[in-house]
């Protein structure tokens, strides 16, 4: 479904990704784990069109998307739920969700999608008329995920969804990710919570200093000595 081939990318003169190759197949939950600064966020931003790769190819369903603008990528069915929520602070939750369904295809089915999303996040039903900026961190994360779902993506990418949340909320976030995956949406997730992420992932890539150093099934990576030492502190 999504293929990265020798992708290089960075900011200005700083190269972050030194030619990474990875693959996400339809229906999978794939994770990229790695330390801060390894290039996880840059990888997702390159796929989303926010960072332009300097070399390599990114293809989605056979089409080259590496040179596209972000809105063109969204229209192809890829949505990124960014790190730090990034809600529209002075818009109601309802308008935040409506913004999620901005592409013509999503807009046509907005009402239907909204009901589905509110069934997934019943708490948000009571919050619909509040400003996005007035919610708690956990609720904001739920809105961010719900807003991403409003686009009816084929591939949903999560960037550090549990960052800065209380442990009980973190558990809810991972529950939601699993439920979304079970509805057939393909998931690519980047997380600092390596243990939980590998537990729900079909496959994982380990990213170190802008290069993929290892890839295997989630379960196998959980048992791997290097992963256990470096990321799980065992």
């Amino acid at each position, binding site marked *: 479904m999504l293929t990265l081939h020798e992708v290089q990318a960075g900011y200005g003169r700083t190269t972050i990704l030194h030619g990474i190759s990875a693959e996400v197949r339809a229906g999978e939950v794939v994770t990229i784990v790695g330390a801060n600064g390894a290039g996880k966020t840059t990888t997702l931003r390159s796929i989303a069109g*926010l960072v332009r790769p300097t070399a390599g190819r990114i293809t989605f369903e056979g089409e080259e998307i590496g040179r596209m*603008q972000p809105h063109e990528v*969204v229209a192809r069915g890829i949505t990124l739920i*960014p790190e730090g929520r*990034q809600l*529209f*602070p002075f*818009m109601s939750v309802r*308008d935040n969700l409506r*913004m999620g369904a901005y592409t013509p295809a999503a807009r046509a089915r907005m009402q239907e999608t909204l009901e589905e999303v509110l069934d997934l996040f019943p708490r948000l039903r009571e919050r619909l008329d509040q400003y996005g900026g007035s919610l708690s961190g956990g609720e904001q994360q739920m809105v961010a995920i719900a807003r991403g779902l409003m686009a009816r993506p084929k591939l949903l990418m999560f960037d550090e969804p549990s960052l800065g949340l209380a442990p009980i909320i973190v558990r809810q976030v991972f529950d939601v990710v699993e439920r979304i995956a079970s509805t057939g949406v393909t998931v690519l997730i980047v997380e600092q919570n390596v243990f939980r992420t590998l537990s729900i992932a079909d496959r994982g890539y380990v990213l170190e200093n802008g290069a993929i150093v290892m890839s295997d099934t989630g379960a196998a990576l959980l048992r791997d000595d290097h992963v256990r030492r470096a990321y799980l502190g065992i």
Partner: protein
Amino acid sequence: MQTFLQLVINGLMLGGLFAIISIGLTLIFGIIRLVNFAHGELLMVGMYLTWIGTSQLGLHPYVLAPPVVLVLFVIGVLIQRFILQPLLDARDAHVQIFATVGLSTALINLALLVFGADLYATPAPGVREAIHFGPFRVLIGQLVMFGCGIAVVVALHLFLERSYLGRAIRATAQHRAAAQLMGVDVRRIYIVTFGIGAACVGLAAVLVAPLYPTSPTVGTYFVLTAFVVVVLGGMGSLHGAFVGALLIGLVDSLSAYYIAPDLKEVVIFGLFLLVLLVRPTGLFGLGRGSE
């Protein structure tokens, strides 16, 4: 008492003038985060277009509103697309502001070249006539301007709150990167917004032309007050700009009579500085950047 009330009416009418000139400026600032120093010159262009239409084609200025608004919208779109957008990724965001300063100078000198420095009065039958409400009087042109000012603020508000495009415009202003992730083509939003801002000042030009003579520097005269209005109201706030404009109009009218005509600017800018000291974000400012 009667004098006072007449002065208040005059002040509100003057406020209507300031409001309609300021709306486009505050819209462009609020969404694109760009201080458009060529705003006054867009007004000037619109006023010349109105003058040409009335004096050369014999049309009433109000009939010219649709074509002038349309032409200014197109001019605004072209400015954003071909002058400002290429500078969007410039290393320093201030480059765009200097581009508008350059555009302003270029337009003034272009007008000098084409029309000379003469003042042109726009013929407008009926617009300068007064209507009487008991002992009070207002010019028809002022009343129309006031009504249009309110109508434009209400229309823009509804557009921004209710329509998909309007929501996308607000989303872009509040969080540009997140708007991109929703599938919003931010560059297109900026082009449309600049077009709408220019169209607003086009409407202002049609309404202002019958009341004030047109000259190459007419924009500079009005736009300074417009900047005060926009900052006073809270930069980017539409209703803030409207209230700010009425306030400046009232202060202008009352201080010219009760203090001295020569000192009204002193009073206006004194008050302006005072508001900035007490509320640096303006009367309706949110008090923080959105990004």
